[in-house]
Structures are given as structure tokens and as C-alpha cells.
């Protein structure tokens, strides 16, 4: 089972999405293309602004860091040159985090990052901002206690295999190109290669994955691209229902 999504449920924003997965719940909204303030205006491309708002408290350097990572990734998949001198404003409001998230003892900005990126892509799709490709993202955790790296583990799974040696976030484009990688902890090149390969299988390949356990979530195998395509298919069906109705 992939993440649960609701698309275009907010009234004021141009596009919006709610994403719920493994206890993470994030509301994303996109306004755009809209008027851009003079100081941010680019003559030949659109400006992308990302705001990450934590569930509790006001934004801190952690959120600013996440915003920078998201900004650079989203900029590379958006056709910014086709909507020059405009602003695409992305707001990501974290609604809830899984229980025991703080007790896991790993870099919490990394565990959050794939969920934020997936939400942002959903919100952009809902807004119909021109995109060059889609992006899907996944978290991989490596622990000496687990035989194979864990793919998008839940907070309880992470607690069970504590201490975690390293965690990696990978994002892939629709053309199987690596868009984003953030890693934390101690790992060898081989371990990174293995993690990257596993992430690529989950993010990109249509129709299931073939490696080890760890990928099974509730007995079903997850495939992020398949999931995203399914979400888009449902969106299009909903939008085109006036045509198909007889």
C-alpha cells in the first residue's frame, strides 16, 4: 500500500494535497504561477518558493535547510523557463509526526524529507504547474541488526533495529535519474550502492520489486512510481468524468 492522498481539497490555494504515510501527515499547497516580488524576479525563469512549517513552533534552521533541499530538487523538475517572471509558492504544513519519532535517535530532518518531497510533487500535480518529469523519494535505513537495509521504515521499525548506522534519502525522476541524495551516518561505498539500488527499484520500476524482505509493507510491495501514477490516473478520471458520463 502506498501513501494515502487527498488532492485539491483546499479552496483558496491553486492546488493542494494531503499526504499520510507511516504516521506522517503533511498538507501541501501551491499557489502559482502568481505575481513575483521585484527582488525575486528572474527574467527568464519562474521563482520557486518553498515554505516548510513544523507542526509545533515556528520554523527553525532545520526547516530552512529542508526548504533549500526541496527548492533545488523541485526547481530541477519544474519547467521554470516556460513560465518566466512568475512565482510558484509551495507551502508544506506538517500536521503530525509518528509517535516515538524523537526517540529513534536519527537525524529527524532526513526522515521527514522524502515525505515532504512527495507531498510537494503531489501539490504541484494538483496545481497543474508545468513539470518536466515527476519525482519520487524514499528513505533507506542501514542497521547492523537488520540483514538488509530497511526501505521507508516506520518509526517503530527504526526503534526495533536501534542503533541505526546510517540513513539515506534518495529521490529519482521519472527517467530513473538520481535527483537528490542526502546521507547521514557511517557507511561504505558498497553500502551506499546497495541502498541506492534498492531505492531506485522502489522509486522507479513499474510493477513491484524483487529484493529481500524489508520492502514488504503489510504484505504488499510498494512502488512509488506506480503509486504516483495511480494517484494521477484517479485525478484525471475525476476531472474528465463529465466526458465519460453518459
Amino acid at each position, binding site marked *: 500500500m502506498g501513501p494515502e492522498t487527498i488532492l485539491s481539497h*483546499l479552496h483558496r490555494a491553486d492546488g493542494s494535497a494531503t499526504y499520510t504515510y507511516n504516521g506522517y501527515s503533511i498538507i501541501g499547497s501551491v499557489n502559482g504561477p502568481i505575481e513575483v*516580488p521585484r527582488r525575486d524576479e528572474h527574467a527568464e525563469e519562474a521563482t520557486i518558493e518553498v*515554505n516548510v*512549517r513544523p507542526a*509545533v513552533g515556528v520554523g527553525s534552521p532545520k526547516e530552512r535547510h529542508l526548504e533549500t533541499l526541496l527548492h533545488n530538487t523541485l526547481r530541477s523538475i519544474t519547467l521554470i523557463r516556460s513560465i518566466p517572471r512568475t512565482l510558484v509558492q509551495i507551502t508544506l*504544513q506538517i500536521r503530525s509526526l509518528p509517535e516515538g519519532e524523537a526517540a529513534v535517535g536519527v537525524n529527524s530532518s532526513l526522515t521527514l524529507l522524502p515525505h515532504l518531497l512527495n507531498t510537494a510533487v503531489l501539490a504541484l500535480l494538483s496545481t497543474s504547474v508545468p513539470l518536466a518529469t515527476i519525482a519520487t523519494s524514499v528513505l533507506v535505513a542501514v542497521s547492523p541488526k537488520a540483514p538488509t537495509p530497511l526501505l521507508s521504515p516506520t518509526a517503530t521499525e527504526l526503534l526495533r533495529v536501534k542503533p541505526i548506522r546510517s540513513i539515506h534519502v534518495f529521490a529519482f525522476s521519472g527517467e530513473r535519474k538520481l535527483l537528490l541524495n542526502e546521507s547521514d551516518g557511517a557507511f561504505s561505498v558498497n553500502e551506499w550502492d546497495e541502498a541506492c539500488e534498492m531505492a531506485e527499484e522502489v522509486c522507479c520500476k513499474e510493477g513491484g520489486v524483487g529484493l529481500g524482505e524489508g520492502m514488504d509493507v503489510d504484505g504488499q510491495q510498494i512502488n512509488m512510481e506506480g503509486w504516483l501514477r495511480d494517484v494521477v490516473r484517479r485525478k484525471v478520471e475525476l476531472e474528465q468524468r463529465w466526458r465519460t458520463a453518459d
Partner: protein
Amino acid sequence: MPRETEISVNERAFIQQALQENLRLDGRAFDAFRPLELTFGDEYGVADVQLGKTRVIARISVDVAVPPPERKFDGIFQIIAEFSPMASPAFEVGRPSDAEMVLSRILEKAIRRSNALDTESLCIIAGLKCFALRADVHIIDHDGGLVDASCIAVMAALQHFRRPDVVVEGEKATILSVREREPIPLSILHQPLCVSFSYFEDGEIFLIDANLSEEQVRNAEIIVTMNKHGEVCQIAKYGGATVDPLALLNCTNVALQKVKEMSKIIQGKLEADAKKRDAGGLMAELSAENER
């Protein structure tokens, strides 16, 4: 940042004329709220309020802090309401708009200064440790009536919240986790709720719970905060038009009726939620709460 789109002259005239003919655009009566929907999250202290198209999420969180030296026997309670571009592209991050100032000031007056929450119960060791409670108000969707919706959200979340129990031995305080001891509810002294009245035609017509387009047309606004016992906590008036004192008295009467209705809805939702959590009927045995 783009400015809020102003309502067009035609639309303004249309709304005004309809009001003259005793009609509202969405067909409500002049003294009717939009349908109120209240849902609670899986965790304690998260309330999601939908008032028509307006949607507000309030979240209560708790931390341990040192109390300020001038208030040794009190805990800390803060309400933070920040707008984000999610509600409207006109809201800029880090630059509070007027609406945002009004919202945080009203919430401060209505809930914090009316002593809705007994802050003394948040004290752990006088002068050394206390609970610092914060309420974060997230505006998700904006279609007018933000003050009313936020107030409902914060009050519902406060009543839904459970703080961890604490054991004090001399100067050593131990916070007990949820697994060790069932968390306890906050002591709420009364439940203030806001009702906003919008005035039109120099105070001849007043509307309850105006939506965004009505808010843009109105002359003035009066926000009355009351609890269900009929005690007025605060009255705020924004905007230019003068208001007849008798009309103001009438407002408080109408507000009381609305506050009673809303309190009942909130109470019903809280009870339904408590029943859902109380699987097996063990909650009463787990509770470590003292009789007041």
C-alpha cells in the same frame, strides 16, 4: 507578494442589495453559523475545525520550563497564530498582516487573559519547574470567520489535551511517560468562545459569521467573547461605523445563544472521542486524576 484580491464594485453592490432584501449569498439566515465540523487527531490535543470553507487546526504541546521569577506559582501558556501562504497568497511569511495581529490579540484576550486555563495547575515546583503549554494555530483554508474558528479550535484542543503526570519528591520531579501513568486532562475553568458580528449599512444590518466576501464589504466588526454561563470575556470593535449601545446589548444576547449551541457541539464531539478511545471501559481505572 500579490495583494489580496479586492472585491469588485459589482459584487459589492450585489451583496449590499441582497442584504437590503434580507438575503445572504449562501442562503443562510442573518444569525446563522456555517456548518461546524470538528474532528480530533489520533494524538491528544489536536483539533481540526471546519467552519464552512474555513479550516483551522490547533495543536497543543507541552514542555518543561523554568517559570518567570515574577510568577513563581504559574505555568506558561502561549498561543501562537501565524498565517502561511496556504490560506491566501497575500499572507507573507515573517511579515504579520493586520488580520494576523487581530487574531492573536483576540485569542490572547479571549482565552489567556480570561483565565480559561488554570495556569497554576501547570506549576510543578514553585520557582523552579513548570509546564510550558503552547497552542499552535494553523490556518489551512481561509474563507472568513478566522477568529471564531480559531477560538473553537483552541478551546476544543485544550479540552482534548492530556498532559503527562508528574511525581515530585523534594526538589526532584519525574515526568511519567504515557506508558507508566495515564496522562491527565488540563484544568479548564470556563470555555470562552468568540462570535463575530459584521455590521452593514451603518449599523442597521448585522450578520453572524461572515464569509470572506461579506467581510470585504462590511462597515465594521464586533467580536464578542462569552462563555456558556453568559459571562462576557471581551468585546472588540474594529472598523469605522458607529454602533448603537442597545444593538450591542442585543449582540451579547444573540452571542450567548450561539455560544451555548457551539459548546454543546464541542462537548458532544469530545464525549464521542472519549468513548472511541475508551475501548473496553478501562479509562476510569487508569485515570490518576484527583476529584476537584
